[in-house]
């Protein structure tokens, strides 16, 4: 998987953008952006959230009309007015959020592509051709399986096959690794290199530096709507790229403060959770999180982490087990009693669970206070007190917002997460459950989240960090457990754990080793 910039330098160009400018009311999203991709090349498009990466690619894909600039495909100037135009030119894009019909089969999803209509759909023919295509590219996709049964990784492969089937030879992948497990990510990397070796081109959009090395040939860095530079990946290292992306020196590794751990704050014993059909999702888990400690839960997504968190905050009733907070057993646990007992939650899915996008900043900051009847007199909200409190939180946690009356939808992802931290940590809780707290955030925001959690720890708080990112566990956790199939396989010490061991554990057994770990780590 080594890059081959030299190899491609003589290849003809597949796509060239010259001076692309795109304005939205009040925002300049792309400012005179130029880049090019050659045939057989993987180009990384790196930038923080909001740097203009997705907008740029939506221009190429015909979803936005640029305000200025030119697009050349295979050396010819073109105007792309719609995704259909783009596909006719051989450009295909896989969005962050997949656009598949869940109830249809893979072949049906592929066959219903607009350009293949009208006329009879010959499903058998499509199935056969899709199967051949998958064979050719080594993609493991069964054309007859229903999309809703597929894993996220498999759905992504279907999106890619859909584009290949329609003749795309330049693929744009928008943050394709966001939802993948390490082994899936590893497979995707191999597939992308294969594509390039067959003379196709790939634009790989990301804000994660680690993903670029060993995968892309060159990398174009965007910052504040402008191109900072385009570099040969072999000629740069991680800190250099990070500095280009963020515009200042970044300490990528947050120092883990060493704190003398105190008394146990969260004690869990014999916790067993089953689903409605009686299948065991969490199997007899016991652990404790002490004051001044970050306890991590590592593991691949879907091994019971969601259910564990739901049981701890009272959203899911366990079959058996005891949960004690500060020595007091929590009976009849509900989200409200969890909050009242001094618990805080930074949830996994920011948009569904973290913030209410339609409500304003004030409502979002104080929702848990309102839910338990605070900041109100006889049912009527005391807006003077509420406003003062929310403005203090906005200041203390550096939430960048025009005001507390603004709907949260208007805030960037990083600021939404700061808002969640302000709400949860601002209550001065005893226990913080942080579930994938940096998902989808850029470097600066990740640093902020880590520092806030570490400050909480230094102040004597107990933190339970559930994460699918091993880097995050290594950076933050004093001790951590590896979760597989609803059980804790082993509890390790944060300082002395090594990637190899953890990777093997994550894979489920010591025998069928490192697959899980290799994907993310081979390249770093």
């Amino acid at each position: 998987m080594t890059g081959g910039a030299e190899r491609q330098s003589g290849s003809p160009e597949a796509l060239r953008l010259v001076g692309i400018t795109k304005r939205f009311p009040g925002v300049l999203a792309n400012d005179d952006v130029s880049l090019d991709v050659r045939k057989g090349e993987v180009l990384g498009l790196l930038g923080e959230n909001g740097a203009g990466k997705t907008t740029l690619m939506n221009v190429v894909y015909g979803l936005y009309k640029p305000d200025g600039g030119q697009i050349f495909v295979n050396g010819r100037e073109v105007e792309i007015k719609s995704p259909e135009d783009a596909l006719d030119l051989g450009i295909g894009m896989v969005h962050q959020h997949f656009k598949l019909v869940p109830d249809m089969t893979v072949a049906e999803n592929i066959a219903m592509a607009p350009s293949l209509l009208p006329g009879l759909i010959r499903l058998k023919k499509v199935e056969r051709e899709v199967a051949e295509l998958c064979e050719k590219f080594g993609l493991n996709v069964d054309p007859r399986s229903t999309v809703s049964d597929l894993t996220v990784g498999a759905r992504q492969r279907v999106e890619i096959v859909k584009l290949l089937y329609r003749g795309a030879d330049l693929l744009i992948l928008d943050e394709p690794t966001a939802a993948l497990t390490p082994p899936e990510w590893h497979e995707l990397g191999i597939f992308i290199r294969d594509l390039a070796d067959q003379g196709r081109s790939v634009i790989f959009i990301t804000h994660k530096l680690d993903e670029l090395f060993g995968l892309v040939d060159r990398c174009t860095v965007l910052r504040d709507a402008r191109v900072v530079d385009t570099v040969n990946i072999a000629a740069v290292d991680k800190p250099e790229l990070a500095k280009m992306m963020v515009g200042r020196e970044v300490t990528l590794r947050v120092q883990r403060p060493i704190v003398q751990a105190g008394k146990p704050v969260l004690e869990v014993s014999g916790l067993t959770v089953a689903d409605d059909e009686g299948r065991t999702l969490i199997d007899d888990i016991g652990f404790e999180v002490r004051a001044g400690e970050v306890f991590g839960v590592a593991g691949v997504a879907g091994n019971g982490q969601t259910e564990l968190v739901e049981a701890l905050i009272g959203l899911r009733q366990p079959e058996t087990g005891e949960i004690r907070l500060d020595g007091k057993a929590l009976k009849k646990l509900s989200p409200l009693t969890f909050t009242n007992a001094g618990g805080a939650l930074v949830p996994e899915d920011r948009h569904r669970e973290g913030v209410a996008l339609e409500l304003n900043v004030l409502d979002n900051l104080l929702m848990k206070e309102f839910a338990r009847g605070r900041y109100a007199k006889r049912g009527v909200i005391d807006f003077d007190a509420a406003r003062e409190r929310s403005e203090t939180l906005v200041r203390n946690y550096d939430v960048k917002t025009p005001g507390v009356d603004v709907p949260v939808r208007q805030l960037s992802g990083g600021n939404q997460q700061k808002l969640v931290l302000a709400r949860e940590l601002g209550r001065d809780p005893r226990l913080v459950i942080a579930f994938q707290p940096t998902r989808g955030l850029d470097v600066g925001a990740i640093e902020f989240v880590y520092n806030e959690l570490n400050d909480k720890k230094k102040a004597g708080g107990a933190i339970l960090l559930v994460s699918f990112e091993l880097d995050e566990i290594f950076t933050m956790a004093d001790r951590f457990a590896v979760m597989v199939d609803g059980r804790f396989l082993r509890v390790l010490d944060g300082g002395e754990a090594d990637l190899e061991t953890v990777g093997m554990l994550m894979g489920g057994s010591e025998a069928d080793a490192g697959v899980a770990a290799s994907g993310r780590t081979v390249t770093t």
Partner: protein
Amino acid sequence: MRARLATGGLDFVLSVCVAILALLVALIFVVAAGVSFTSGADAFVSGAFGSQLNLAGTLAKMVPLTLVALGWIVVFKAGRFHVGFPGQILVGGMFVTVVALKIHLPAGLHLPLVLVAGMAGGALYAGIAAWLWAKRGVNEILSTLLLNLIAAQLLAWWVRGPLHDHTSPLPLTPAFPNSARWPELLKNTDLHWDIVLVPIAAILISFLLARTLAGFRMRLVGSGEMIAREAGVSPERIGVRAIMLSGALAGLAGASLVAAGTTPQVGEDFGGTYGFTGIAVALLARNNALAAVPAALLFAALEQGGQTMEGTVGISSSLVDFIQGLMIVLVLAATTVLYLVRRRTTKPRAPKATAPPTPRAELEPSK
């Protein structure tokens, strides 16, 4: 805040322009029916506002429209939808007929009891759908739609059986005592004192939603069930309350239709089309409780103007019905399009949009 007010004002002006445009389109059909454009337009405007009698009719029709619209706004904010207003109006009205005819009280007590009965009837009838939804997962749109049919049949039996006026061959109730009726505001018109419910209810609901914990809980549940659950607010409990409150508002509309009607007794058709037109009012008002008042005025004028047109320029009543339906469709279509265009052009964080803006996604209720 000022920007928001300015946008709101502009929205309102646009809505009015759209309504006028829709009226002009509707008049084309009147012209096609052989009536000159000017006499058609004149008949409509004077039919809605021209005389004291017509203006009173328009204002009287605002009452049920506003109350139903507020009922819709309440459930909408809590993230639920139901279309049971016609049925809740009828059941609220049936409760009212019992209290009005079977209980004898002095005026100062009788009317308040009538209103309470109407609200209770609407709330309880909505409560059936709410319970089915919360406990059994029955889609509340479906259940309320079917409950509407049941309510209509119940009322048909009601005015022929238990509450039939035996002196009349028609399916009508006996006349209600004056103590159970809203007093007239303008003598010999349809306008009764229940018109005061319009500003009072609009302000109360607006206050409830914007400034109280109960309203906050509804808005929180409406903006996302998961996040509400994690904050400790039960979507089921709040959903049931919202549906029942909306039923109470519809029941209050039913009380007005019974106790402030043109005649002192009611038949099986007192509900009219308010139960559905009220939803259109709420949509035109963009689910803003205060904006529901002018929106209700517009639809009330449509209804009243259309009715009088029938008599003054002699077009058939089915054409009037057609024009009213057409105007509802045009007003809603045009305001929805305007709204979408605006959302797209003013998207403040457009570069952050990960998915391209598709009209479908924006038409979906905010989650």
